[in-house]
């Protein structure tokens, strides 16, 4: 397979790996005893998770009154966190589905972990609407099931119900897509394992053999799932934005929300992928598979989406002024200069201004700056949702009901707790599954390995390979 690769394209796999070396490198983290760093991280994560469980218990026991929600502030940190987590999930689907359709080969280094991130982020996101119900045990009311009240159906015209369908479909499809991709890699781990591990991976690998027909179906399935996941991921954040955009609240009732939310989602998701990847590649010694080239590519996406988000912020301000509608104008005046001005500043500086440094290639390829930026972007995107929710709700139509919202320790605890939930899931994932898609990396070795492409490639290999092996 001597595919034509541009000579200026940088290799995606460094270290002159052979197929067997790839298997060794990627499987070994699941086979070693956990490192001290992992154990410490796991203890912290589980502590966070335990605190989360405590805060959920507290909320259910005491009721939603333990949060500072009130008239007119019906949504606070909970929905902010919900939108933030869902948004983070979007990058995983973008990498695994949209970049697959665009045949971007660098996706193979990061897609597995990014998809895992999607699944865990959606799990975290899904917590908040459920806890916010207060009576969690009545959560099944959101499903249209034949009930004894008529049956009285749910309101299929409500964006909040669309959200139920969107998020649960998104979770299911992401999980299936991820697992289908994992099956061949679980088989690789299975065929190296012994004893109890072998039995465990035998179950997980679903009896994969690597037959040509199975690979053909597997590839077909991956492409169709990618084709389905692409409009799905766009629909999910569009529908999340409908939760706001279809209301009659000034500042929310805008048609720009769907594209602006989707861009913001990809933006924050890529930042989270960067945060996770920079740590993962270092801790698991995967620098040869998640290279500076990958980091550079992701920083370009961050720059692009951050700028789209910036344009959206400015468009909102312009349209608010141009509309001549005083309530809309006030909503945005209040957003920028009102009591929550500090969160607007946080949003603008973290999301729009700071990513502009990625115009410089040397900065895109600087690991420390990238890491710090990824944290900034995540903070900025959290502020964005907080700005939209809190600043708008704290100043509604009647000045007599204006107030100022600050979270209670329970609300803060729930947010920190979901970070624990997320980290616990991710850390377990790195112990069980190969964090880089082994089969997919192998299939790009001939076009992405540094012994075949790039400055250090052998003079030529097509003839050499057939003879040396």
């Amino acid at each position, binding site marked *: 397979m001597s595919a034509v690769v541009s000579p200026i394209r940088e290799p995606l796999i460094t270290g002159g790996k052979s197929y067997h070396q790839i298997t060794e490198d990627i499987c070994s983290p699941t086979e070693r005893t956990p490192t001290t760093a992992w154990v410490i991280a796991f203890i912290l994560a589980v502590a966070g998770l335990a605190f989360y469980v405590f805060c959920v218990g507290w909320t259910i026991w005491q009721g939603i009154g333990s949060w500072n929600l009130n008239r007119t502030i019906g949504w606070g940190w909970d929905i902010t966190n919900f939108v933030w987590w869902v948004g983070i999930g979007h990058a995983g689907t973008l990498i695994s589905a949209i970049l697959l359709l665009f045949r971007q080969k660098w996706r193979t280094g990061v897609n597995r972990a990014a998809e895992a991130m999607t699944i865990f982020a959606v799990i975290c996101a899904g917590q908040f609407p459920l806890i916010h119900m207060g009576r969690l045990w009545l959560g099944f009311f959101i499903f249209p099931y034949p009930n004894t009240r008529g*049956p009285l159906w749910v309101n*299929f015209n409500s964006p909040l119900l669309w959200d139920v369908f*969107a998020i649960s479909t998104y979770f*299911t*499809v992401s999980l299936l897509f991820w697992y289908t991709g994992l099956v*061949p890699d679980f088989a690789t781990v299975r065929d190296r394992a012994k004893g109890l591990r072998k039995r465990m991976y035998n179950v997980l690998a*679903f009896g994969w053999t690597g*037959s*040509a027909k199975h690979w053909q179906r597997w590839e077909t399935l991956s492409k169709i799932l990618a084709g389905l996941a692409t*409009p799905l991921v766009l629909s999910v954040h569009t529908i999340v934005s409908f939760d706001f955009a279809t209301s009659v609240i000034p500042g929310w009732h805008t048609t720009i929300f769907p594209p602006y939310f989707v861009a913001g989602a990809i933006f924050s998701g890529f930042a989270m992928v960067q945060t996770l990847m920079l740590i993962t590649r270092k801790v698991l010694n995967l620098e040869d598979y998640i290279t500076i080239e990958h980091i550079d590519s992701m920083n370009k996406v961050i720059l692009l989406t951050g700028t789209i988000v910036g344009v959206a912020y400015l468009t909102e301000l312009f349209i608010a002024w141009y509309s001549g509608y005083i309530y809309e104008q006030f909503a945005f005046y209040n957003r920028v200069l009102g009591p929550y001005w500090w969160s607007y500043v946080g949003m603008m500086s973290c999301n729009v201004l700071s990513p502009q440094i990625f115009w410089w290639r040397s900065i895109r390829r600087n690991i420390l700056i990238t890491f710090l930026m990824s944290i900034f972007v995540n903070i900025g995107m959290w502020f964005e949702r907080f700005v939209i929710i809190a600043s708008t709700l704290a100043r509604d139509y009647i000045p007599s009901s204006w107030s100022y919202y600050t979270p209670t320790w329970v609300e803060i605890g729930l947010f920190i707790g979901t970070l624990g939930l997320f980290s616990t899931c991710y850390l377990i994932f790195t112990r069980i599954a190969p964090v880089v898609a082994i089969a997919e990396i192998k299939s790009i070795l001939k076009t992405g390995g540094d012994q075949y492409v790039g400055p250090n490639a052998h003079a030529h290999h097509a003839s050499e390979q057939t003879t040396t092996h």
Partner: protein
Amino acid sequence: MENSNKEVLFGLYDDEEILLKAVSQAKADHLNIMDVFSPFPVHGLDPILGLSHSRLPTAGFIYGAIGALTGFLFMTWVFTADWPIIFGGKPYFSAPAFIPITFELTVLFASVGMVFTFFIICGMGPGAVNPILDLRITDDKFCIAFDASHASDEEVSKYKSFFSATGASEVNTKTI
């Protein structure tokens, strides 16, 4: 592949380019390949091996269509026949508002249906045990397998000479 006490004669190759040449050679020699195994999808193998296109996309389309109809018709029935309610002064049959859920159900049915179909037609599932010829096939070996259960000595030697002529690094037999 079911357990059928088949005797399989297989050769292992070290590289997919050698494998592709070997498969073309086998086709030219009119050898009846039982199956080919590889650690990753080898592009260009399907046409040489004579595999027809997968019909999974057709199945996916049908599942998706079922999902779309289920969603749309169910909501229509609920809001026009079973319990009509006016929301925001809109007509009972407010089709545009049904689109998001219809879309989600289309994707859901198509994806879930296709993934389950894929695993069932490949004979896979949690804990399914399919015969594995060599543990290194999921690592770095590419395998061509012949069914040698009823092969005459002449045929077996033909297979073996094929393996040595096409550069197989190992030749083994296994009863599966």
